[in-house]
Each structure stands twice: as C-alpha cells, then as structure tokens.
C-alpha cells in the first residue's frame, strides 16, 4: 500500500522537506517514520494512516484528474450559537431556520419546527419570523410575523431561547444600507425607524468589554458588554445563565460604564456573592478584576477584556483589518 506510486514520500525528518508540511501537521506524527503529503489538501499525514488526517482523502487511491477545487468560498454570512460556538453557514438566497429539516437546524424545544427565514441578497441579510411560537428577535426588537427586517454583522439574533451572532463577510456593521431597507416593502413606513434601530445601532452586539469567567459550577461563562445587562435564567435577560437551577429568573444586574463595573443583586432567591460576601439586594457593589462572583451554584472570576476597543476577529473569516481598512465602510461583493 505504501508503495503506491501516486503517494509522495518525504523523509522522516528531512529539514528541507518539512517545508512541505502545512502548519497543521502534528510534529509528533512526523516522528512515526514516513509521512505522506495528501495530494488534495497538501497536509502531511503519517504513512500508517489510510486516509488523510485532514480532509479524509483515501491516500492509496489514484489522484483525481482534476484536483481543481471550486475556489473555497467563504460563506457570505454565518450564524454562531453563543452557547456552543457552533457555526451555521448562510447561503445566498433563502435559508430556513427551525427545529426540523431546515437549513439552519436549531435543536431546541423553544424553536418551532419552521421558525423563521433568512434571506441573503445583495450583501444584505433579511430576517423574517414565520409565526413561531416563541418569537424571533433581532437585537432588542421582537419581530412581527412575516415582516422581514434587515440585520447587520455582529447583531444578536434570537430564535426561541437560542441566541446567535450574525457574522457577515466583511466584518461588523456590514450588511446595512438605507437603500436595502427601502426594499423591505413589508416593513410599514411608520414602524421602519424602530425596526431598523437595532440593526443600525446594535446595543446588544457590542463585543464584551469584560468577562465573568467560570471557575466552577453548572452555569455558563458570561461575556459582559458595556452598559447595563440583566443576569438570570429567563431568556429575556441580556446575560442568560443556563444549566444552573439555583439562579433566579431575574437574578442580578451588571453595569459597566466609565471603566467601572458594578454588580447588583435584584432580589434573587439564592443570592449573589462577591468574594464570599452576599450582596444586599439592590445595593450595587463595585467589581475589581480578579473578584470572585458567585451566582446560584456557579462561581466566576471577573476580568476586563484586554483591549476593549478592538473588534472581535471571527475565526475562519478574512481578517477585517487587512481587507477592509475602514471598518464597515465596504460593501460585500455581490455573488
């Protein structure tokens, strides 16, 4: 099998040959003896493996005639689940969202089988609720059924209890222009301003300026944006704690302004603790980096984000700084 002529052999540790290795190549693997470079994706794989460890190509097979990949197109837009980091690509045209058989498949009982529709068109992203039981939110605005709304890159979308961040190729703030908004005929003229407001001024979408990093317990990490964020189990909170039954529906509030962070318990059943001391309800407590915060059964460490001004560079997307020196100024190329 290893004598297959189509396989390119490299010496185990030849320094000049290691240049062939892609950055993903595991240095430990190359010690195994021979390695093979995959003709499809050019990843180095140990000869012991029958399949390329990166793309899965059957290495003993004849190399396909045309290895010309369709240029690897980055999807025009993606949705990222906040809780799991799972990415859902959006295609140009229509994408259905729901719990069963949809393009964007969200397996959560609060999502309807056929929940919403996202249209990607001319570099714009339109979100439309299809009469779902638990509703769709774009930023802060709950959509009326069958009325498409424009959403920009970085906006938080919510289907039932599932929160996702919209990422548009080209970075934050992309995908909005008044031109496009006018095309959304379904938006009544009177409500246009309010409906577009979250898209133009994404309040929730601001990248976190601080973190409540989980130390232990059943809850989830909480990215804290600037301004006031409510913390609790209920989905209406800006920071929703899942998985911790000891967190109240409406538990606490964190306010970040002027470089200071203040935490207030809003009358939770099981209390909010800072460095082991229970907060009096409705009495704000200033947080310092390193403070240990306990909400329900979950302990967190409070910390600031290193560079609060810098944009999040979503992985797997082109670096916004390189291709788009002025953030949000460029339009997305048409497909």
């Amino acid at each position, binding site marked *: *099998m*290893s004598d297959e002529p189509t396989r390119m052999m490299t010496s*185990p540790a030849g320094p000049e040959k290691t240049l062939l290795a892609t950055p993903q190549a595991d240095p*430990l*693997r190359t*010690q*195994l*003896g021979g390695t093979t470079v995959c003709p*499809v*994706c050019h990843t180095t794989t140990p*000869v*012991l493996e*029958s*399949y*390329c460890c*990166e*793309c*899965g*190509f*059957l290495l003993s*097979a004849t190399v*396909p*005639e*045309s*290895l*010309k*990949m*369709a240029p*690897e197109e980055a999807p025009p837009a993606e949705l990222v689940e906040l809780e*799991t*980091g*799972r990415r859902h*690509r959006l*295609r140009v045209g229509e994408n259905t969202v729901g719990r*069963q058989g949809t393009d964007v*498949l969200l*397996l959560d009982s609060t999502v309807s089988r056929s929940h919403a529709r996202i249209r990607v068109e001319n570099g714009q992203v339109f979100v439309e609720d299809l009469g779902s039981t638990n509703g769709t939110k774009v930023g802060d605005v709950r959509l009326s059924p069958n009325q498409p709304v424009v959403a920009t890159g970085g906006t938080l979308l919510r289907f039932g209890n599932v929160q996702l961040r919209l990422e548009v190729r080209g970075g934050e703030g992309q995908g909005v222009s008044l031109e496009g908004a006018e095309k959304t005929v379904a938006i009544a003229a009177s409500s246009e301003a309010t409906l577009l407001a979250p898209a133009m001024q994404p309040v929730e979408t601001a990248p976190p300026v601080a973190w409540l990093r989980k130390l232990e317990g*059943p809850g989830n990490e909480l990215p804290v944006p600037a301004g006031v964020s409510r913390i609790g189990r209920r989905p209406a909170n800006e920071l929703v704690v899942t*998985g911790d*039954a000891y967190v109240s529906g409406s538990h606490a509030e964190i306010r970040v302004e002027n470089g200071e962070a203040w935490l207030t318990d809003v009358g939770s059943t099981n209390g909010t603790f800072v460095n082991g001391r229970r907060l009096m309800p409705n009495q704000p407590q200033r947080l310092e980096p390193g403070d240990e915060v306990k909400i329900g059964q979950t302990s967190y460490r409070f910390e600031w984000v290193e560079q609060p001004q810098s944009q999040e560079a979503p992985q797997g997307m082109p670096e916004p700084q390189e291709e788009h020196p002025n953030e949000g100024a460029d339009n997305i190329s048409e497909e």
Partner: protein
Amino acid sequence: MEDRTQIIGASPTQMGAMPTQMGVAPTQMGTALQTLEVECMPGNRYALAGDISREHALVVLKATGQQLGRRAPINVCLCIDRSGSMEGPPLDYVKMACDYVVDMLEPNDILSIVTFEEHVDVLMPARRVVNKALIKEHIHRIEPGNTTNLYDGLVAAFMQIASVLPQTQGYVTRVLLLTDGDPTVGIKDYSTIVQQVAEQRAKGITVTALGFGPEYNEELLAGIAKRSGGNYYYIQRPDLIPEVFRRELETVMSVVARNVQVRLQLSRWVNLRQVYGLQPSFGPRTVEVTVPDIERGTSRTVLAELEFERHPVGVFRVAKVVVTYDDLLANRPGQASADCVFEFTKDAALLAQGVNPIVHNEIEIAQASQNLQRTIMGMRTQQLTAMGALSELQRTRTILMQTGQIEKAQQLDAAMQSLQRGSGDVEKTLMGTIVDIEQGKR
C-alpha cells in the same frame, strides 16, 4: 483500572521501529473479542462532488451475546412515590415489587431505598444487601403520605447512589423512579428537573422512569428517561408493578457496556447537522453523543445527518467514529473505531444506485418517531380528532412494520385500541415508543 488508550497512544516510537506492522490499525492489535463492535454505514455509497450536499451516516453498536463471566454488580436506588394517591393496592404492590428486587440482588450489589411525599425519607442508605429480612421489614413499614415532592426525592436518590460511587467502579448505576402523579410541591418545572437529571447523567447516574396509572406526567417522565439514558415504562395496573420492576432489574443486570460515548471526528469540508434523538455536544471538528447503557446481545443505532461542502472527486473518509465505553465484561475501558467513507462523484446518476437500504430504514424509523410526536401534539391541541389521530397512527404503524420494528408496531396497536376505547392513556403508551426509537433500541 487499566487505561488502554494510554498504551495505544504511548507507542509511536515503537511502531516506527516495527515496519512489518504498518497498516495494522492499532485498535485491532491483540484484541481477541470485543464487547462492543462498531460499524459505520454511509447512507449512500456516493455523494455529489463539487456541491453542497446532505447525507446520513449510521453507526451501529453491537454488544456481544456471549455469556462470559459473571454479570456486573449494580448500584441501584428505589425511589418510590408514597403520596396519598398511592394508598391501597398500588402501595401494596410496590412493597411486593421492592421485596422482589431485594430477592434478586446478590451480596455484591448495593441497594438504597428513598420514599417521597411532601417529605423525603431515606428508608435504606446505600448498603450491600446482607440482611434481606431486615430490609423487607423496613419496606413493609412504608405508609402513604400527602403530596408529591418528586424533585427532592430524586435528589435524595442521586445522593445515595453518589455516596458510594468511588467504591463502585465497574458497577451499573440506576435509579428506579416510580410515581403516579404530577409533582405538587418543591421544584415542579420540567426544565429544572430534567436539567438536574442531565447533570447526574454526566456523573454516570441513570434514571429509569416508571409511570403508574392515568395521572402521571408522561412528558416529564419521558424527558427524564431520555436525558438520563434510562428506560421509560407505562404501568397501567397496580398488579403489573412487580413484573415491571423485575424486567427493569433484569435489564440493568445484563448491561455489558456503560458510559458509552460516540465521537465523530469530522474531516475537512464536513459539518454535522444533527444526531437523531440524542443531544450532541460540539467541539472543534468533533461531535460527541452519549449513548444509553448497552445490554448483552442487543444493538443500538446512532443516526447522524452530515453536510458536505464541495468535495473534489475521490474517495474520502468524511468522519472517523471512535467509541469509548466502560467494558463491564473485561472490567476495563474499551475502545472501538470505524470509518465513515463516501465516494464523491460528478455523476448524479450513480447516487440512485448507491442508497444503503439499512440506513434508509433507519431514516424511516426516525421519521416514525417524529410522526408520533406530531400526532401527540395534534391530539393535545385538539387539531387532530380521534379519527384523524387513528389514521395517523395507522400510517406510522405501517412504517414500523415495514422497517421490521414489530414490537414498536405492537405498542402502536395498543395505543390505537386505547384511542378507540376512548381511554386517555394513548400518549403514555406512545411516549414509550418514542423513547425507544430515540435511544436507538433496535
């Protein structure tokens, strides 16, 4: 316990020095008999190259039927509802059922008994079953109380099982929860209870939910069983309680693989859309699902839906399937793996020839489960009349018959008879069929 994965991982230098062993997958070396066999079938031999396409992959886990050695010992907690409504024959039969359990256990097994009404009592903390007569004496002192504090009862049961967990590696753990009603005091909401169950699952504690009579909440009990990887039973009459306890205990005693994790390592250009009936956890290019305990001689299926992004023409392993489990026959960690391979082609005509009938069958069965859920929902919201529900069930029954799921088709027969009689337990029966399908029991 011996860690086999470490031995495999620690041998790269050795293998480099042993060119004769090249090409032999490490997992196949020196294994005479696997407790679990793993196979992965693509839904179609072919997939479309150069395009975005969706296909299914079926993972089949088969447990050996061989009678090897003794059964694994069990750490079991009986968690019994003694609310007022259990008074009379139900509680009498429960006591008989508990006696049964005590008789079936061996000195190596661990038993605890918790009862709940408004308050929770630990009738017997987790102990080896030594003095059977004394345990039974305690069982016969169970008296009916008032309300139903299911959550605290469950938590007490978890604590009993957990209190001996460190000393009981290699044991099968199980809480047998029996209730006849909705929770009425304490924490009552579905998501909190099910979340608690899911957390205990992560620690290796499984709950089997036994619903008795017409009043219990089947949605809650099925949810507990599903999230916990345990079984669900609907017990119609009190005199059936001892029989169901015996059946469940026998099931627990025949478990050969527990803590079964199926991990799909996805190749480039492959995304996982869903795993039917199970809640996957997503990592960087890996997806993991926990599969319920597997009994001797049985098999379980895991059906996944994949999405491919513009593969070139050629044969590709789209995912490597790695299964890890506690091998209770050999009393050590077990591991098995399989490759999920598709041939990507530009020739769309080939696709029609490549369909795998076994995988296709599984997709139909998954569809049957979704049909049943829709029927239940339709009946609850009264969008479906009894006649409408009957014809829906008939259709689903046909699918189950055609796919060889005779036992499940019979469950539907029972549900249809109930529907025709006008009795209200149709959903309780159907829920059992859904749980069985979603847990991949075949």
